[in-house]
């Protein structure tokens, strides 16, 4: 086989291989993505948070700064996702963790399990105003 023929054969083979493998790579990417999406719909909790917080946001002005009270400890892996999705759901209202320096007039409770929400609010200096279900509570500063 002449060198130019070998070169032509190699180019033909590689071109066809890249066309096939490139397409297969995209198909494989879709299969992985579709399976992941099916297994973990709303993996980041954005949609769930929107649904849970909508009744509360309807009662609070858009300009409000809200405190944040939760039963999750900041060291728990679930803490950051819960806070960030709540922050997105209540925006443009501000959201800040309640502490000695930050005590807005209203606070949002974002709880992961049923509990005595009124007592948890009082521990932070807030009185429970309304329970919206799904662990979402509106508190008012005492």
């Amino acid at each position, binding site marked *: 086989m002449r060198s130019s023929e070998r070169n032509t054969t190699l180019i033909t083979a590689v071109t066809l291989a890249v066309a096939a493998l490139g397409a297969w790579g995209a198909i494989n*990417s879709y299969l992985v993505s579709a399976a992941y999406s099916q297994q973990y719909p709303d993996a980041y909790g954005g949609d769930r948070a929107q649904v849970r917080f909508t009744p509360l946001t309807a009662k609070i002005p858009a300009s409000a700064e809200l405190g944040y009270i939760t039963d999750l400890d900041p060291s728990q892996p679930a803490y950051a996702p819960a806070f960030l999705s709540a922050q997105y759901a209540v*925006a443009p209202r*501000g959201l800040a963790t309640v502490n000695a320096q930050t005590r807005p007039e209203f606070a949002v409770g974002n709880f992961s399990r049923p509990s005595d929400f009124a007592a948890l609010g009082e521990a932070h200096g807030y009185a429970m105003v309304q329970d919206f279900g799904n662990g979402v509570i509106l508190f008012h500063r005492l």
Partner: protein
Amino acid sequence: MNVLGVIALAMTIASGWFLARALTRNAWKGPRWTGLLAELSIGALFGPGLASILYFFLVAAKAANRASVMVTLLALLAGSAALWWRISGAVEQKGVKQAAEPARAFRLTWALWIGVAVALIFFTLDFQAASSANPAGEWDAMSIWNLRARYLASGGDLWRRAVSSDLGGNMAGAAHPGYPLFLSGFIGLQWSAEGGLESGFEASVPIAASLLFATSALILLGASLASRRSIALGLLAWLILLCSEVFASQSAAQYSDLLQGLAFLCALVLLEAAADRADARLLLAAGLAIGLSCWIKNEGLPFALAALAVSAWRFRLRGIVSVGLGALPGFLTLAVMKLFFVHGSEAVFPSTVGEAMAKIAGAGRWWQAALGFGKAVYDAGNLWTHPVLLAALLAIALGFVPAKERRARLWLVIPIAATAAAEYSLYLVTTADLNWHISTSVSRLVAQLWPSLIWFFFLMLRQPEETIEPELEPVAVRSGPSGKRKRRGGASLN
């Protein structure tokens, strides 16, 4: 997305296209469709970029509402269209025609088209599956880009929350007050056009933006190569990007990284075209892309500075003036935002030089960061369809352009290398846990550079059309004084 949102989006894209068409008129050599696709994808950077800048100033002046946004977009569209009209008229008056070079045929182009079509279908399905599962986007979409867009579109002083360090509940790395506002501004302006707070911040707006920027980066990669080098190379580049997991997985994330990748690629494509023919308009367009690249993410700044430096070296004083003028909108807006509006700083930067030096001195961090980048490249695709593997096969089969041409094009990699070096350096000095920082960001950094790296690789690769001997073709010859042509069979290498 309501009707006004669609109109706002259409006006933004159309204004970008007019601008790209006006400024890049002489850049495209290949078939007409390649130039058209390249213009549209460059327009998808220019239009939204300039619109987000105008929107930022409207927001800062507390004047952003449905009416002001629509009037502003109309003015942008009218201005861009007028510029295009004027330039195309001037060119026609001078009798200058855009010469389309005849495309040489590669006999396996059909196979590449089939591969690209299949890959494109599954890329679209991939995007649809990911967007349906997470309409609000991934983490940073919710906690940074779309969140800030909500603040911008809410009217009054609420936009200042977008540039406040109070976001994220004081968690490390959760607040990014200094991040530029291209993407958030572009999404915010559409939400404002839809009615702002009352519109309910429709999720379809950031989804459409994500699709626009991902497909534009994809289209520009292949179309620019197809236009300026060869159709076969353009198709091969599309295949390599479409099988890149690092690209596909980011396309529906609603992040700024693929937009950043589009800006990097756009700047490089235009710089390369400008080097080919010293055209002030092309240099202006390259400058615009360079300036907009630093209005997207902080990583755009080292790229922009490096691109300006190589432009000064390559195009001398006259050229750098054009590039600098083009870059002004992006640079100035970023400076205004950072100097006058941002509160606080990034939590991951060391507060003193001593702290930074102590971190740099840790040899383990150098390895850790290098391994992080290595792993991200490894994860960029699957084993047998890995883009690096496919690129290596192409390099073996096609080979590279002659050394002289390689050296002549090498300067184009400098902005990419400078950006990669800056990103690597950030890992060396970050105050956040290095493992966490690398694992949560390195694949996105690679995604920013990926389209440009593929483009640069194909710029260095020989064209398949060059490597295959021409097939025997009938050759037309002049026969006799009548000038009639007869056909004869035979080989010709000319």
